[in-house]
């Protein structure tokens, strides 16, 4: 098994180098046989990585502790699902997974039916193979998945208990799919530049790829937050941890990209900006990986124990310099047919402002993340900026984004007049003022929540108004009744209404963030059995403390009876789990969740006389965040799937080549 595993990796390295060269020779000699050989190399590479993955999964599942990776991340008592998910618990496995996804995407592009006969294919494949060579080089030299132990241990170290959670099975895969997915639009963009194809062909061809990558990044971030909320037990879902930031930054820039490409598609503007955004997004995925692998920053999930970070930094540098060089060499072409904004009051302008805000947000997160590194380089001591910095900077940014999201749908493309704006905004604005007054009457006095909730309400009203007026306009032309007009309006404009659905999801997430960040209450109390803890409207009675065994693990749990405003609402059972092969116990949060709030209880310590210390939190509106996430996913899927526009192949207008 060891020999075959190692062989597949060395063969993978050799074939990725060969295919890279074969494509270049094919392009230089304009010989289709060389290009076809490169394409077959891509397919072979995918088959080889699939075989490598299967082999590693097999040795993980069968607990073959002669392999270092297996003994480091699994133990024989681990449930099979966690044995398999240990594939991405360490560097070697997760980089192998990355390579597998990369070769899969490369194969899909190289053999894509829509790209059949397109001269960009060899160029795109070469760029993606450049990435594959790097990953294979790492797998062959630095983090070797099939490395053997000097002696065979009788038992493995086991999997970090924090990773033994269903959320952790999906979270890394979704993030990798998002990260690697961005390699596709990046490769298309660079290939288009090389072939002097500066129109929006590459954008149209990669629209679904980019949306899919964005969807996976969104899912990865949300699942990460959900996991942190339930498993880490500190009461929050987002700690501005460097690794969280690493996946959030490309999310922000890709969100900006998804909006600004619409301007290029319609008006041929912002070509340099869009290229810069996709290069930046791709570079940020590599930067994120550098942060996770290098261990330069302290993080919950950093697994930096090698010099991998340096390799990633070097590779990122090469990729960015190459991409910037290609872009600058085509700068005159990119600027040639660029149009201009006709009016400040237009959708184009609002998209541009939205882009600037999103890029500012990405920069703020980037600055806060790397500040410890900069401070260490300048002053010699690592200064971490912490959560208050991020909250202070990001709150006004979130509010500005909500405002732009609110006004954007009611502005027309190209030109809007003040008179039209007044007419369209009147009802949503009046309704929003009523909401603001109601919020004030309900007792909300602090400025951020009032502004935040008001803006969310404004955003929801403008979107509902936009949809209602769309239905009315369609109905007046087609004589369809309103429900039919609504269904047809939405299904015929998947991109627009999928986008609006995503905006609805963002509004729900914003409600959850504003509520939980501003109105959470926390209490830490030591109580004896029968004593009560009062917090907000809740009365919690500590009823029992007991111990149970689950497999080789011991679990200490408390039973708490919960009443709200005098009414019984249920029982909560927070746990501490002690693992046979892990020093640190893990926390299992006890929670009662509703649309209004989460009652969140962690058992922190206990005494011999059964007195126990609990951390109790009431986190308002957190459920809205997860619900918003689901709505975002539905909206994105709606925009990606189906629709005639998605089946259309745009015309390639770049340099013509004999080889494709």
């Amino acid at each position, binding site marked *: 098994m060891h020999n075959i595993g190692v*062989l597949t990796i060395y063969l993978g390295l050799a074939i990725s180098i*060969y295919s890279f060269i074969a494509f270049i020779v094919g392009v230089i000699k304009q010989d289709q*046989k060389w290009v076809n050989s490169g394409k077959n190399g891509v397919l*072979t590479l995918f088959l080889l990585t699939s075989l490598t993955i299967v082999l590693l999964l097999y040795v993980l599942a069968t607990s073959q502790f002669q392999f270092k990776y297996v003994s480091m991340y699994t133990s024989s008592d681990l449930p099979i699902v966690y044995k398999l998910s240990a594939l991405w618990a360490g560097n070697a496995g997760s980089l192998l997974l990355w390579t597998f996804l990369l070769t899969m995407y490369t194969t899909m592009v190289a053999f894509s039916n829509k790209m059949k006969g397109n001269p960009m294919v060899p160029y795109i494949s070469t760029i993606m193979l450049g990435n594959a060579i790097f990953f294979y080089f790492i797998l062959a030299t630095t983090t070797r998945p099939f490395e053997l132990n000097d002696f065979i241990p009788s038992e493995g170290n086991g999997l970090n208990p924090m990773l033994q959670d269903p959320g952790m099975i999906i979270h890394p895969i979704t993030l990798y799919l998002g990260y690697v997915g961005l390699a596709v639009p990046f490769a298309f963009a660079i290939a288009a530049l090389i072939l002097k194809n500066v129109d929006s062909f590459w954008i149209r061809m990669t629209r679904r790829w980019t949306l899919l990558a964005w969807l996976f990044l969104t899912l990865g971030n949300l699942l990460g937050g959900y996991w942190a909320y339930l498993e880490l037990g500190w009461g929050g879902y987002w700690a501005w941890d460097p690794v969280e930031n690493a996946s959030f930054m490309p999310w922000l820039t890709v969100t900006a990209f998804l909006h600004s490409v619409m301007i290029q598609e*319609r008006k041929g503007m912002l070509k340099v900006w869009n290229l810069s955004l996709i290069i930046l997004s791709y570079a940020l995925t590599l930067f994120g990986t550098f942060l996770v692998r290098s261990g330069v920053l302290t993080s919950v999930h950093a697994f930096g124990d090698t010099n991998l970070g340096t390799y990633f930094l070097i590779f990122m540098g090469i990729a960015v310099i190459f991409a910037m060089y290609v872009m600058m060499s085509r700068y005159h072409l990119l600027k040639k047919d660029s149009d201009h904004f006709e009016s400040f009051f237009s959708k184009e302008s609002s998209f541009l402002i939205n882009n600037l805000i999103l890029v500012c947000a990405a920069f703020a997160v980037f600055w806060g993340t790397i500040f410890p590194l900069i401070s260490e380089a300048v002053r010699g001591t690592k200064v971490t900026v912490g959560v208050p910095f991020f909250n202070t900077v990001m709150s006004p940014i979130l509010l500005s984004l909500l405002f732009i999201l609110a006004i954007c749908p009611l502005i027309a*493309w*190209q030109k809007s007049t003040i008179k039209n704006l007044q007419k369209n905004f009147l009802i949503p604005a009046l309704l929003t003022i009523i909401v603001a007054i109601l919020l004030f009457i309900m007792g909300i006095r602090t400025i951020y929540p009032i502004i935040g909730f008001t803006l969310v309400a404004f955003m929801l009203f403008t979107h509902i108004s936009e949809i209602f007026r769309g239905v009315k306009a369609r109905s007046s*032309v087609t004589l369809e009744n309103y429900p039919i007009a609504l269904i047809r309006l939405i299904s015929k404009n998947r991109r627009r209404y999928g986008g609006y659905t995503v905006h609805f999801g963002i509004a729900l997430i914003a409600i959850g963030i504003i509520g939980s960040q501003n109105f959470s209450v926390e209490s830490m109390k030591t109580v004896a059995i029968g004593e009560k803890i009062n917090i907000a409207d809740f009365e919690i009675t500590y009823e029992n403390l007991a111990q149970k065994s689950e497999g080789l693990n011991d679990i200490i749990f408390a039973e708490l009876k919960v009443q709200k405003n005098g009414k019984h609402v249920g029982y909560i059972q927070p746990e501490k789990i002690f693992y046979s092969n892990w020093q640190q116990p893990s926390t299992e949060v006890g929670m009662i969740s509703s649309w209004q709030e989460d009652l969140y209880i962690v058992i922190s310590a206990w005494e011999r006389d059964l007195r126990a210390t609990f951390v109790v939190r009431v986190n308002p509106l957190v459920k809205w965040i997860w619900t918003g996430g689901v709505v975002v996913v539905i909206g994105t899927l709606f925009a990606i799937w189906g629709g005639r526009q998605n089946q259309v192949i745009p*015309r390639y207008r770049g340099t013509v080549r004999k080889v494709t």
Partner: protein
Amino acid sequence: MDFIVMLTSALIIIGCLYMVLAPFFHQKILTNADLKKSSDNEVIKQEFYATLNEIEMDYKMNKLSEYDYRQLKKEVELFFVELLRDQDQLPELSKEKENKQILEEIQSEIQIELELLRKERGLKG
């Protein structure tokens, strides 16, 4: 056991070599006739109707004044005339005459298509 490993390794290596070398020994390679054609006219048509549709919807939803609506509609029509010319899908005519003539043709074509669509659905005009 070693024999099985060696045999498997040899098979993998031979399989890989076959895959990458096979194209050099194949007589038939893709020609332009085999290539996937872009759905060019379809794209232009779709985008044209989508843009016109959006302008009309913006107008009906009070986002545009009547003057701006007519102006924009004309601009979009001219833009697509230019695009079709770039694609060599229009006959060569003198530029001035051509723009006017083609614009009129396109406008009447749109009118006919819209009326046909409405008749098909049994809608008011």
